[in-house]
């Protein structure tokens, strides 16, 4: 379940980007009419208008929708052909979709257009699953290079890494899994955005994550 981020936040994240791809998702986000074809087109119009009024400039916006943004193969067929023409992708999927894209295109800014409120019931096939998103309700993937510390740092630290990090591995589970904060650091360093790394992230408002949760797609 996702909720559109406030427009001001989206515009702030777009910043000076000139060539944008708005990528919807026909999976969960599409089914519930939050990130499907129609929302992608509405978002395009909204951004074009806002950019012209607020910054007096034109942004080149491509749009597309993938069947399921949480599956890299689906994303690849749609995004690969155009990736060289865009500076950033605005994802209208959930926090998982953003991170799948961020892993596939580490040098491209992936902007979360949604706050993921929670993950509803979904059957998943067997195999390995990695938890990518805890649906925390205030997505900060923009600041963390498209890698979620809420779900992927064992302590959900917002200002890591902790002292338990060694050679990029996490103390939890015996230094076998990657430390999310070192991943974030490496990603941001590669993209020359360490300024985002050093940002102070204030204590989280956990009200958004309280369970049992309810959410109305019409903006509740």
């Amino acid at each position, binding site marked *: 379940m996702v909720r559109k981020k406030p427009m001001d936040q989206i515009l702030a994240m777009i910043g000076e980007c000139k060539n944008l791809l708005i990528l919807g998702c026909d999976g969960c986000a599409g089914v519930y009419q939050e990130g499907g074809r129609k929302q992608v087109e509405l978002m395009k119009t909204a951004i074009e208008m806002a950019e012209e009024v607020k910054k007096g400039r034109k942004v080149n916006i491509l749009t597309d929708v993938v069947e399921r943004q949480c599956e890299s193969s689906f994303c690849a067929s749609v995004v690969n052909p155009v990736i060289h023409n865009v500076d950033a992708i605005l994802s209208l999927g959930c926090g998982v979709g953003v991170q799948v894209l961020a892993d596939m295109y580490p040098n491209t800014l992936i902007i979360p257009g949604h706050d993921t409120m929670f993950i509803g019931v979904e059957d998943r096939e067997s195999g390995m699953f990695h938890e990518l998103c805890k649906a925390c309700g205030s997505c900060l993937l923009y600041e963390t290079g498209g890698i979620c510390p809420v779900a992927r740092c064992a*302590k959900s*630290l*917002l200002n890591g*890494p902790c002292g338990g990090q060694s050679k990029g591995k996490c103390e*939890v589970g015996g230094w076998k899994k990657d430390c999310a904060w070192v991943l974030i*650091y490496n990603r941001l360093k590669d993209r020359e955005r360490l300024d985002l790394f050093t*940002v102070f992230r*204030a204590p989280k408002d956990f009200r958004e994550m309280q369970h049992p949760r309810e959410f109305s797609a019409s903006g509740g």
Partner: protein
Amino acid sequence: MRQAYSELMKEISAGKFVYTGELEPVKTTSLKEVLEGAQTLKGHVVAVNVTDNPTAFAYMNALIPSYVIQRDVGVEAVYQMTVRDRNRIALLSDILAAGALGIKNILALSGDHTTVGDTPQAKPVYDLDSTTFVYMLSKIVDEGVDLNGNRVEEPPKFNVGIAANINADPLEPEILKLERKVKLGVDFIQTQAVYDVERAKRFMEAVDYLNTPVLIGLAPFRSVGMLDWMVKFVPGIAVPEEVQERIRLADKRGGKAAVLEENVEIFGDLARELKKTTRAKGLHLMAIGFEHIVPRIIERAG
């Protein structure tokens, strides 16, 4: 810069080279060992850290021994607080209690994860992280309000310390994280144990720009068993071959007593070297259960 409220900060501000010690209240209701330890350290160190359920082992609440060593022994405490076991409400509650009991130093820590401790089934809290905890402390001490802006009557006056992973690899994210914390109101930094002067120097150079007093951590080896454990299970801690060799040989030569003497030499010399060649404002000596070595290391450091 926050005013110096504690003896520790007063001495650092006065330009003295300071020493701090460390005590660990373990799984017991007895304060006997902690008080004896504090007595041994008294006069040699300016303050003593009291650990808060270290490596996520469930021990006595650190606030009680922090208070009692100040009251009965007259040694200042550095009350260690982790965010692992308390949410922001419980943290505030303990902070106010600490203020009422005359605690002057708080070391804000994230705390090792519950899964590495002796109660791995526990639900970890991490409502705040050590950075947001520093932010909370600054609000209380400097502005007299809690995180939500609610007024705190007669706010406590603490100096706030943080820990640094001196052996961090990669080092840069650690430094950047320290920078983020320092900006929020940190008075001093205590580092994890270091055994290697070069590493310590590299770290001290990297944090120089933060302009915050650093106490470098030293942890002598109580026994060969402890050495083996450090080498095997504590990643990121590099004990040079030569040091390991000296401890092991001493053990063969003369058992526990010889190990102790060897430690005095190794760590006394290391302390002198760090004092001389780095811009550390002091050393943090972690010799839990064998505090008697601390005065001897300090003496040898000169």
